[in-house]
């Protein structure tokens, strides 16, 4: 069984308690308060599309590491704000929203920073995992592309 477990550092995310752990073996190296998905539902007015803002659960790995990331706003972000979805891709770009760093783990989900640090510890996001500045810096420094992420 031990051969199946990650030998390097791995990340465990507890979405119920909004906690993230850096672990190596059985040892917790760091524990961070985070924000996970709200579980809310958004339906497109007059359309057929529907989004459920859950943080996905299961086994993932870090697919990308970004510094000073831009947020490419998806359709739901405009629909939620009651705005028209822009035709020009340039109108989707938003800087300074995701914090200093972002770690992608697939399907548009990221572990990233937040402007709303007072909401850390609550389920408020659209599925991404928001982390405080100091923890995010440490996460970016320590995690590599390929680092395992277990989310429950």
């Amino acid at each position: 069984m031990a051969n199946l477990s990650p030998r390097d550092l791995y990340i465990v995310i507890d979405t119920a308690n909004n906690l993230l752990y850096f672990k190596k073996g059985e040892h917790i190296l760091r524990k961070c308060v985070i924000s996970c998905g709200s579980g809310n539902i958004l339906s497109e007015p007059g359309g057929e599309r529907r989004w459920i803002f859950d943080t996905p659960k299961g086994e993932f790995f870090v697919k990308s590491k970004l510094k000073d990331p831009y947020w490419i706003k998806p359709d739901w972000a405009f629909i939620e704000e009651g705005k028209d979805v822009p035709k020009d891709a340039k109108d989707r770009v938003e800087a300074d929203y995701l914090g200093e760093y972002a770690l992608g783990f697939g399907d548009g989900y990221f572990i990233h920073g937040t402007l709303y640090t007072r909401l850390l510890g609550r389920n408020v996001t659209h599925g991404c995992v928001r982390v405080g500045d100091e923890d995010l810096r440490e996460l970016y420094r320590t995690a590599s592309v390929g680092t395992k992420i277990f989310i429950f």
Partner: protein
Amino acid sequence: MLPKWIPVFTLLVAVANILGYDSVLDDPGKLFLEAELALARKPGLYFIFDLKDKRISLKARGILLQEWEVKRVRYWGNPAAVKPTALAEKTALLPPKRERIEPGCSDENGAYELKALELDDMPSYYTLSLTEGILLYVRPQARGWISSFFAALYTLRWHVFLPLKTVWSSIRKKPFASIEIVLKDKRESRALFWAFTEGMPCIIS
């Protein structure tokens, strides 16, 4: 004069209680380790209901992610064979309800009343239906008169409804097993409901 059906009903319940109550699960041994190894080899999370040691573990790749202490456990019907099964459905009297976002009404800076599905919104009394026809009745330890009332309802169901269901299942030749699990408190019970999602594999031993 008692109605004639009452003694018959009482006898039926008593016999079914004697036949079905508190079955003992087989010693899992090697079978259990092989079953867990099969799950640990695949990507994804899985649950181990180790009812002999009164522990529920959420694991991935053999790593323990979260653990629940079982305060009390009792069985009905045929005990589960040690092999991977999965969660088919979660049911509760008051299931959690997702909030709907009204387009144009959101305010990301948190100045609005926070609407989210959080741990406290999860039920603490619920049923987990597994794909092998096993039912897990989960509840917290009774504390206070409200939870004592619900615990009494569970006991009533355990000794009246389940015996009858066992008899009915035997007549239909459909195996039936149920396990009642009592956890430490509401928070633990809610956390299990949150973490155990439909389709997730598990092993009961």
